[in-house]
């Protein structure tokens, strides 16, 4: 039934379009003449004829397009039908409705309708307040790792310990989808064991082998940030060793059999431990070359053997171990002249040939004859006391475990809270002494659901549907997981416990303190990176034959550039519109060359201000965005356009319907067309154009950036010049990225609102609903006064009811929804979904 209707809608769209093209009046079909009216931004009723003229043709009680029938609704019931009308506002604002190709209302009239709807909806918040509610909130694996780092001064790799968390609305901290399965729980319990052993150390540690494998592609002539200056290539390993003792290094397979690369030059391999050199040995040069040539495999074996069984004494705890080469002076350059070495000095070779012996596989075996455990940062954090006699043991254990439990449970603890940990201590104490006892007690704390779950405890006897203020202790956690992605520190816990935290002056002071803390960098690497889908970079693998300038190191460079770019804006509390418009960025030599910027040397990132001739202002000019939204072999204006709509404008397009014909790739032997020409063919179909008419012009404006984010004037594939022109749905003409950026800045409130929606989703750990929109708009309006500064937006969110209040919900049911004039209630769709809207 519904499918049939969609076809009808398509045909209608098609006719309307044909009519448009023929120059006929949009009313050429059989519908009644449009009603005349005077738009009024303060009266929905006055604007109602616009709906009747332009929307009811599909959204009516017969067709129910998108499950909405405006002809069953009244202007005076808008306040109580927020769910529908918030969607309508979004569609109008994004120019998504009426779809391109259909008759469009006058922009001023559209604006007036939107304004009048917003006015009513915002006022309605007083009548229908709803702070929403967040279900029992499990720590995700990033939060877990950060909490462990704060609690125990121990760096762990959460991906190696816990399964990946599901995402909702692009974020992995949404309570609803953070489920628990036996497999998760099993790993969680085993993580607690591993973490507690690593933190306390294990003087009886058995010899084990840890193998670290580097990238197959990382250049060996590039200095690796984090390693001592004057070195190049290799690996940097950050690891925690369980005990003091001898450790054996094996650098496996430095040179391979068969055709042996790179031994003609003399390389000097060194091992550093915490930046101190502990090993140095030459590799390559005349003698080695002769050995390989004359003795073949035996020679290779002898050379490799020089880098095996390297035994050194190391202490327990964290170490930074470098295995790398010494850089020679430029006078005796190490650089091999490769046939196709595209980036000078960067020595990546697309043929996959090694550019010298690659340090790729390092084994650290040990401890051999463990000799106790030295002081480590973790032990310093844990052992606040250490017993000198048997009598001191239990009181000391109680002190240690109470303090750990308080930090882990994020609130003051009672005797009952540490009872379990103490009984584990007891067992461990009997088994292996005081240290083992503490390790078991710590493990018991880490497995507890009191650590795993954040809760919002309602006051006693809270009725279902009633609203309550969350406890200050819970507020402290909410705040710290929002701004730090980690557990609250002692000061927050204290303010939470004393019930002062919610006081406005206290809260503001804490937010400012937290934003100034280095831990707030999580807003860049956790919040903003998820918002901008930086992870997507890992999924694009540009074809090296088409993009010789691409090296896998660029993925790191793009990520780092973005991190520093966002970091500067956030740290300096800049207006968030800077993210679109700022003219500075950060590059190292490799990235500078990639962008065509001269005069930057070395692997370290430097701040540069780029002139407008680079077209790199803001996020639109960043390689991270440009490459994430490309395919291996070409740009995709569709992905770029959709990304802009979703991430910057908050009006994501629908997914394409099933069974659409795929994009036409150039056939082997066929004539190459530009991406624009190939897209043109599908936009000529009305059913495609309904969405692509909105998406494509945005993406096509970026065509001067190729799939790896380099500027181009020409489509090499098709041999044609780049045409980056287009027209937005509101009629704005674009010629390239600068126009696009200006167009986005012209709607900066929309960008700020989208940013705020994302920040709030992340901050609350729940999907935003229609009843949150008045709050969001309020925050954005208020922040306009100081130019949309980050801290103002953060404070707006923190001070909102959605953040500080909660609605008590009955067992397993959702927040009671307002009655909507919808035939079939979609089960908890997000705000951004519009239901299936015809084409």
């Amino acid at each position, binding site marked *: 039934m519904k499918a049939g209707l969609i076809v009808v809608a398509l045909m209608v769209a098609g006719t309307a379009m044909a009519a448009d093209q023929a120059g006929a009046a949009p009313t050429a079909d059989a519908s009644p003449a449009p009603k005349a009216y005077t738009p009024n931004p303060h009266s929905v009723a006055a604007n109602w004829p616009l709906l009747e003229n332009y929307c009811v043709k599909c959204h009516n009680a017969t067709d129910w397009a998108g499950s909405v029938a405006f002809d069953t609704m009244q202007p005076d019931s808008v306040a109580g039908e927020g769910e529908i009308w918030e969607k309508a506002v979004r569609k109008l604002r994004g120019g998504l409705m009426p779809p391109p190709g259909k008759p469009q209302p006058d922009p001023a009239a559209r604006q007036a309708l939107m304004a009048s709807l917003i006015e009513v909806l915002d006022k309605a918040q007083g009548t229908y307040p709803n702070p929403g509610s967040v*279900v*029992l909130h499990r720590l995700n694996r990033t939060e877990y790792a950060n909490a462990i780092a704060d609690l125990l001064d121990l*760096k*762990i790799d959460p991906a190696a310990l816990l399964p*990946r968390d*599901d*995402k*909702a609305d692009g974020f992995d901290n949404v309570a609803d989808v953070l*489920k*628990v*399965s036996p497999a998760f729980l*099993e*790993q969680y*319990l*085993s993580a607690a*064991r591993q973490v507690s052993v690593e933190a306390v150390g294990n003087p009886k540690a*058995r010899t084990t*082998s840890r*193998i*670290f*494998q580097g990238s197959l592609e990382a250049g060996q002539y590039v200095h690796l*940030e*984090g390693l001592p200056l004057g070195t190049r290539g290799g*690996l*940097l*390993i*950050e*690891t*925690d060793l369980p005990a003091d003792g001898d450790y054996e290094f094996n650098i496996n397979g430095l040179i391979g059999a068969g055709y042996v690369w790179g031994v003609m030059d003399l390389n000097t391999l060194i091992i550093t431990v915490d930046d101190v050199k502990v090993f140095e040995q030459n590799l390559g040069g005349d003698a080695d070359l002769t050995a390989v040539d004359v003795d073949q495999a035996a020679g290779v074996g002898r050379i490799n053997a020089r880098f095996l069984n390297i035994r050194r004494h190391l202490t327990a705890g964290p170490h930074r171990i470098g295995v790398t080469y010494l850089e020679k002076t430029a006078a005796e350059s190490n650089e091999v002249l490769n046939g196709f070495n595209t980036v000078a000095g960067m020595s990546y070779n697309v043929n996959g040939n090694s550019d010298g012996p690659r340090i790729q*596989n390092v084994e650290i075996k040990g401890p051999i004859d463990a000799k106790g455990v030295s002081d480590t940062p973790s032990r310093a954090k844990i052992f606040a006391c250490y017993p000198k006699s048997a009598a001191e043991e239990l009181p000391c254990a109680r002190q240690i475990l109470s303090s750990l439990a308080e930090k882990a449970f994020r609130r003051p603890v009672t005797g*009952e809270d540490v009872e*379990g940990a103490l009984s584990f201590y007891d*067992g461990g104490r009997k088994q292996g002494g005081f240290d083992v006892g503490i390790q078991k007690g710590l*493990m018991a704390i880490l*497995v507890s*659901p009191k650590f795993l*779950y954040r*809760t919002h*405890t309602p006051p006693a006897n809270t009725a279902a549907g009633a609203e309550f203020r969350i406890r200050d202790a819970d507020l402290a956690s909410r705040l710290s997981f929002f701004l730090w992605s980690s557990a609250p520190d002692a000061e927050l816990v204290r303010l939470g416990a004393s019930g002062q935290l919610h006081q406005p002056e206290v809260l503001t002071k804490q937010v400012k303190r937290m934003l*100034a803390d280095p831990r707030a960098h999580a807003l860049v690497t956790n919040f903003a990176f998820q918002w901008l889908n930086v992870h*997507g970079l890992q*999924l694009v693998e540009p074809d090296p034959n088409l993009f010789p300038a691409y090296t896998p*190191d660029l*993925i*790191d460079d793009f990520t780092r550039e973005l991190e*520093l770019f966002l*970091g500067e804006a956030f*740290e300096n509390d800049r207006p968030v519109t800077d993210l679109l418009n700022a003219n500075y960025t950060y590059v190292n030599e490799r990235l500078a060359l990639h962008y065509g910027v001269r005069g930057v040397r070395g692997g370290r990132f430097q701040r540069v201000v780029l002139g407008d001739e680079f077209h790199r202002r803001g996020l639109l000019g960043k390689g991270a965005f440009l490459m994430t939204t490309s395919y291996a072999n070409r740009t995709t204006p569709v992905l770029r356009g959709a990304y802009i709509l979703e991430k910057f404008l908050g009006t*994501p397009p629908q*997914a394409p319907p*099933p069974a*659409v014909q795929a*994009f*036409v*790739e150039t056939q082997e032997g066929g004539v190459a067309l530009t991406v624009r020409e190939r897209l043109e063919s599908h936009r000529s179909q009305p059913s495609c154009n309904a969405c692509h008419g909105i998406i494509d012009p945005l993406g096509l404006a970026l065509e001067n950036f190729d799939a790896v984010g380099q500027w181009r004037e020409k489509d090499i594939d098709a041999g044609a010049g780049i045409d980056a022109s287009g027209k937005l749905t509101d009629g704005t003409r674009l010629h390239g990225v600068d126009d696009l950026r200006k167009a986005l800045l012209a709607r900066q409130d929309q960008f700020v609102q989208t940013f705020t929606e994302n920040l709030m989703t992340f901050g609350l750990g729940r999907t935003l609903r229609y009843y949150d929109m008045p709050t969001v708009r309020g925050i954005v309006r208020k922040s306009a006064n100081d130019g949309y500064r980050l801290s103002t937006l953060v404070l707006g969110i923190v001070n909102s009811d959605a953040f500080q209040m909660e609605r008590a*919900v*009955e067992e397993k049911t959702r927040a009671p929804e307002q009655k909507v004039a919808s035939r079939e209630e979609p*089960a*908890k*769709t997000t705000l951004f979904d519009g239901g299936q809207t015809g084409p």
Partner: protein
Amino acid sequence: MFITKLHLQRRTVLKGLGAAVGLPLLDAMIPAATALADTAAAAKPRMIFVYFPHGAVMDKWTPKKEGADFDFPQILAPLKPFQKQLTIVSGLENKSAIAAPVHAITPGTWLSCVPPRISHDPLGGVTIDQMAAQAIGQDTPIPSLEVATEEQGGEGSCDRNYGCSYGKTISFRTPSTPLPMEHNPRKLFQQLFGQGDTAEERVLLTREDQSVLDLVLHDAADLNRTLGARDQALLDDYLTTVRELERRVQKVAGRDLKGVNLPDTPAGIPARFDEHMKLMFDLMALSLQANITKVITFMMAAEVSNQPYSFIGVADAFHPLSHHSNNAQKLDRLAKVQAFNTQMFANFVKKLQATPNGESTMLDQSLILFGSNMSNSNLHDHYPLPTAVLGGACGKLKGNQHLKYPDRTPIANLHVALLNRAGIPTKSLGDSTGEFTEI
């Protein structure tokens, strides 16, 4: 302050316990000795569900001949040695997977045939592997094992409206509980055989696990007192999970692994995708042999996998290649990838055939579904689905048949038949309209 903070490049900085390494090949771990056989007189078949993403090039999958002694087109060819126990089922459709964000819901509907709710908070259907786990998995330490080779596929395996839950797993324990699939062989090994490197250590740790779980239950009860009604209900789910784990730990404590040569714990994820896939298959075979589980689901590659198959000379990433635009060269390369996947599966089947179990072999006692929930990857359609059923199923399957059903017969009918053959009485599920009796 942010800017001066020392930052390290991710790819070349390795943290923690060490990353991927060359794997111990697990051939050695399946000894000639008999597997840990069932003691029950009437054995019920093991059920194994092997999923490959992105459908198949159907004219290189579907045999031309119907009935017995059918022919083997390219993609099926590696299964020829098992023809006696092989049934190809043609003409099937899965309607529940039809929706715009195809990839995001295709895996999760394969074994349920229930259209999922449009929501990040998942609500789909219970999958047949989990129905089997309820019925036949309860006497093994792990009622069901969920295995994959990749954590997640590329863009498209998640959807804004449907979320990620239906795209990452083919197994749902309840309509709202997707089961994550383990792709790390090291973690899988520890899940199967426990932590610790020696048998002695494993016993100690297992005992400790039991008291840890007691403590968790105790703390959860504590926590429960502070929660609102809905959160209490959610904590109940958590408690169910804890109890499930408790049961598992007890089973593990009581099991006897004398017949199995345990290899070393794998160090991590092998660098080569084919080696990774093989290792996961090996661990599956080992878990069956050790009678740790009787129900397994496996996603050979992630939905929207961008894995290149360079080891067989196909440099294209799998998913973009699957959008072949009917280009002949691309179709050839895609079929090559798909035939390779079949070959990897066939190697696993061979291993089961070589594993004696009581009077017969593990393969004789297994019921394996091998297929995809997509047909033509260029069109993203769900008809006709590439579907093969393999194994002796304790004598409950005829084998050596190519069954061609009327166009668009629901695949749910096959699922009903498979459950019944496995001794799990089932009348209907999803959109089933009956049961295949011919199989």
